[in-house]
């Protein structure tokens, strides 16, 4: 089994807010991230797929295909967007780094499975170079 990772970057804005809480509690729990005017990051997304290299091509998946799948499934919906306002999966879910990793996984899982040959293994998202979250599916 070989694990292959493709990296992509996108920029988006967000804020942390739980509608079930008072503004005071949101500020207490989420700190500066609760500013309703939003703030933004340059995110780095790492998508890892696992499989056996094809005996003819030597590829687990064609990296160009994976690049295009990430662009189509994730970046086209998230890049230069406000995650809370413009991205449906964060209408009711706080766009924390953890939840962004899970949402990216859900967007990519079927595309990778449909292509055949490899399985989505890991999605890692860096909010800054020092902060990241990872999701490996339901394990």
């Amino acid at each position: 089994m070989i694990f292959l990772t493709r990296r992509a970057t996108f920029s988006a804005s967000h804020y942390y807010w739980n509608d079930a809480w008072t503004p005071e509690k949101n500020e207490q729990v989420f700190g500066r991230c609760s500013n309703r005017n939003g703030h933004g990051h340059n995110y780095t997304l790492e998508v890892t797929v696992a499989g056996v290299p094809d005996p003819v091509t030597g590829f687990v998946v064609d990296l160009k295909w994976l690049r295009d799948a990430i662009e189509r499934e994730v970046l086209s919906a998230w890049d230069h967007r406000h995650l809370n306002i413009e991205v449906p999966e964060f209408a009711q879910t706080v766009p924390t780094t953890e939840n962004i990793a899970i949402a990216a996984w859900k967007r990519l899982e079927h595309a990778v499975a449909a292509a055949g040959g490899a399985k989505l293994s890991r999605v890692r998202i860096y909010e800054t170079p020092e902060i990241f979250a990872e999701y490996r599916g339901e394990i």
Partner: protein
Amino acid sequence: MSAKALFGRRYMLSASHRLHSDALSAEANRAMYGKCNNPHGHGHNYVVEVLVGGAVDPETGMVVDMAALDAVVGAGVIDRFDHNNLNLDPLFANRVPTTENLCRVVFDLLRDALPTGRLECVRVEETENNFFECYG
């Protein structure tokens, strides 16, 4: 059931050390550790990466609150080692402060101290070209 995810955070600390084993002769120490055996020590900018696993809290969307994690790592690890000589720390009284051992020591310091979640991995990068991981 909440999804299980991992949250990672990278910290930096600068410290000096000298690789020297009391179990070896001076000559054997020089042969084993080379430049790292310099009696006056030397230093690194270490990167300590802490990986926490657990359920994503449905209310906060978090595996662990970053400010709380920062407080724990800051007080337990960064304040302890940053701008200090690792050899002089009691935890290295009887072990060579290699980055393998630093990685293990940091893991043990944090294992039961996390605000939430489970400590999955501690990774210590000594330079850009070498790093060490401890999974418990």
